């Protein structure tokens, strides 16, 4: 890519997180701002923008997945069967 690409992040409204919106090709931050303002804000669709040179972004896309890590995730737990048994023992199981 011969020309600098600026990634644009926009905040749709107060309280929302910044979301990636797109990119503009611009020589510096001033041009990037002038152009991103219009491309991502001329309809009042953004309350704030972050402009970041693409080169400044560090891409992270891989994780090790070798061992069973379910013990530390919600999908590692299935309590239905035991809960039913406990209720039956306590006599608190409802109809159906």
């Amino acid at each position, binding site marked *: 890519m011969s020309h600098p690409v600026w990634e644009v992040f926009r905040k749709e409204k107060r309280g929302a997180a910044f979301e990636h919106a*797109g990119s503009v090709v611009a020589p510096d931050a001033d041009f990037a701002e002038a152009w991103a303002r219009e491309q991502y804000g001329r309809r009042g669709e953004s309350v704030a923008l972050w402009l970041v040179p693409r080169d400044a972004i560090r891409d992270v896309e891989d994780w090790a997945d070798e061992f069973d890590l379910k013990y530390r995730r919600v999908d590692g737990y299935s309590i239905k069967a035991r809960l039913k048994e406990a209720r039956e023992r306590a006599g608190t199981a409802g109809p159906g």
Partner: protein
Amino acid sequence: MAAVEIPRDEQAFLEYVQAGGQVEVTDWMPDDYRAKLIKFIEMHGNSELMGVLPEREWILRAPTLQRKLALTAKVQDEVGHAQLIYRVVEDLGKPREQCLADLVDGKAKFHNVFHYPTKTWGDVGVIAWLVDAAAIISQKALLKCSYAPYARIMKKICWEESFHILHGRDVILAMVTGTPEQFELVQEALDRWWGPLMQFHGNPIPKDEDPMYLWRIKSQGNEEARQQFLEGYVPQIRELGLTVPDPKLRRRDDGVWEYTEPDWAELRHVVTGHGPKTEERLAFRRGFLEREQWVRDTVLAA
């Protein structure tokens, strides 16, 4: 949980996208997929940019301040869409300068409707209402494109197009409730644009023979799009007292619209660069591209 690994095998990739899999710019993709994607998306960008030229003349002639503002904003959006689209193509590997050079050299295509002249303010209404309506049907289907960066920009594009159609319909409504001459301007424009509109979605290729559908770049067949257009818009046209210039046009009991077979030879002829206004518009664009090269050289130089 492992990140989804795109299989580096054309058949497996095909199954992946057909199962709804999404592809990002850094993923492996078959050469054919990448090539077809670039060509398709580039044609879209070219179309947005070329669509500006017929409408631009009418910005200058808009009969009220309101219409001038609305038309300028609409055309501005088309340019904005071109910017979004060419960025996607650039990230896929084809620089914008190359796309624009291919466009003005006649080596790349753009949609049939933008090769035709605009003759009156009636055309302005018909284009903003019906041409944009035909385009938005295709664009909504592209929201499901397997190539995620393109699907994402379609969201912004569809959101912006929503006012275009309303604006177009408003222009038409003002004229059909105005003087008899104004009504006639609309009818006459419709008579000229109906043919290109019917050709717009392309000749009917069965979905399973259309590589664009197989790769899930398009999620809708050409005929499906055309039927949606007719179903949505013929009633809206007729309720204004306008006549659709196709005596064979009718809706069957099973909901399918029948119509006079569009002139596919004309479509082929036009999109390969032989439309009534093709040369003139490309020359116009080429002129500005050349004259303003110094600006890009000065500003975008490192």
